[in-house]
């Protein structure tokens, strides 16, 4: 038996495909990406000229990059905070009822499995300048805001709209994680607290919240990485407008710099944006883990 499980040939045969794929499609390209970020790509000769930190210097002076970074950080903060509040609220309320819990849970989770591209088109129509929601607002004699066109303000209105659509779509994910954690808390803890005269709100504050804390870290880092990667919704809701209306996030700006017909093929600069994105992801995860690091209680 032991000899069988130590069979070198079999181990290599089993693990090799996965490891080879990982190295070839993930780790080698990451290395290449870091190298490209230090190069200037010449479209005509298709060569990469080493220019050191030139791309990063250029990006730091680029007003479009500043907007993309601002919007991405806005999405990061908004999604972390809003998903924490609503995800936890939904989870806490749902664990309090028995009938219909599964139905509610499954419906709220539904948009998570649907294509963001499709849902983005749907919401883009609902927030259209003349039809959709504005049609109803107009009929009631209310002002019709230019939901997806407005460029006023530090964080423009379209960003808020998309942030709320993203919250609508993905809050199910956080809710599920918190629910899994809350249903693992022993009932006797709550019963003991009720005997001691605690109210439901107090029980939530002093039992649920501390015991859910480790999951907050996990869920929030997932949100943070997800919101930094944010591409599908923005692209399908705003399309090519991101360019004209200054509504880029890092992912769309990377796509535009690298592949858009107008932006040209600045592979070097786009790779630099990719590197910044990865660094932000790691940084956000590290900060969140530090903030919510706590010992696991026995439950």
């Amino acid at each position: 038996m032991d000899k069988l499980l130590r069979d070198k040939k079999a181990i290599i045969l089993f693990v090799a495909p996965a490891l080879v794929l990982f190295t070839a499609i993930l780790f080698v390209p990451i290395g290449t990406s870091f190298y490209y970020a230090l190069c200037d790509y010449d479209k005509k000769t298709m060569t990469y000229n080493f220019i050191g930190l030139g791309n990063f210097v250029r990006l730091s002076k680029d007003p479009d990059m500043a907007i993309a970074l601002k919007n991405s950080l806005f999405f990061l903060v908004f999604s972390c905070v809003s998903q924490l509040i609503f995800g936890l609220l939904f989870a806490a309320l749902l664990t309090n009822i028995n009938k219909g819990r599964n139905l509610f849970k499954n419906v709220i989770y539904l948009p998570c499995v649907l294509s963001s591209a499709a849902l983005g088109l749907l919401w883009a129509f609902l927030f259209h300048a003349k039809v959709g929601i504005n049609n109803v607002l107009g009929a009631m004699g209310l002002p019709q805001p230019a939901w997806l066109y407005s460029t006023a303000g530090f964080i423009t209105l379209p960003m808020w709209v998309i942030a709320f659509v993203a919250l609508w779509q993905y809050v199910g994910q956080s809710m599920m994680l918190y629910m899994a954690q809350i249903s693992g808390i022993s009932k006797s803890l709550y019963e003991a607290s009720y005997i001691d005269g605690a109210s439901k709100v107090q029980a939530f504050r002093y039992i649920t919240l501390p015991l859910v804390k480790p999951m907050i870290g996990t869920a929030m880092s997932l949100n943070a990485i997800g919101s930094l990667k944010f591409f599908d919704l923005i692209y399908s809701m705003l399309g090519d407008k991101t360019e004209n209306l200054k509504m880029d996030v890092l992912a769309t700006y990377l796509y535009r710099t690298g592949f858009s017909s107008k932006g040209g093929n600045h592979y070097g600069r786009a790779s630099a944006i990719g590197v910044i994105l990865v660094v932000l992801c790691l940084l956000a995860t590290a900060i969140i883990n530090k903030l919510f690091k706590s010992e696991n209680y026995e439950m």
Partner: protein
Amino acid sequence: MEKNKKPVKASTVLIYVFFCLMMVLYLAPLAWIALTSVKDRAEIYKSPFGWPTEFHWENYVIAWTKGKLGIAMLNSLIVCVVTLILTLIIGSMAAFAIARMKWKLSGAAMIYILIGMMIPVHCVLIPLFVRFAGWHLNNNLIGLILPYLTFSLPTCVFIMSGFFRSIPNELLESACMDGCSIYQIFFSICFPLARTGLFVTGLMTFIGNWNELLLALVFMSDGNKKTLPVALTKFVTPYQTNYHFMFPAIVIAIIPTIIVYCLFSNQIVDGLTTGAVKG
């Protein structure tokens, strides 16, 4: 017999009211899109929220042919099914070796694979695009299958290794006594035993890749190689938006996932949660 009926509390009623409102918020847009998809162009602009006066089913036919949705759906299906099968085979082989077989570097291999969960696809986009263009893999479905496969593997290995660890040792030992080779142990005993895990991982892989947009957008510029999400975004151009074709297209694109979700929602929800928590 006395029936012990609890009084219904006001807070419980409030919770139900709240979640019923949420149901409307979540289901109304989907119901609305189905209704709007059978309106003609004038009616969409005139009364976007009304009940359709006439059911224009031909919208679907036009969207299907004009938007090349048929070929797009076929591409999506090919890519997702091939990725699914390869992920399950390669992923569970690696998971088995890591979870059950005895070798020094198994822990390191697991960490190596799990790092893949943290890395955003954007970061490898450009090197992969350049490399694949050199190998003539862009505008080729294989060029999409390879990265999808790689990015689906970490979750698969993570979930499957949990399943393989739960298989009792006695089972493997008795198989060994009966003269099974390690390959037979894996393919005829462990692989079939872990089918719950395979099912969950398979669903998640399929759904994730079915919805993927960025890679498909970059790699598939040829009209006949587009996947469904890419084909959808092409309905909106800076110059015109044909809403009466766009809505049927959206319905066509999300119906398969809705059906799959309705059939297996409990497994999907559980699977996505365990997959996301990663230990």
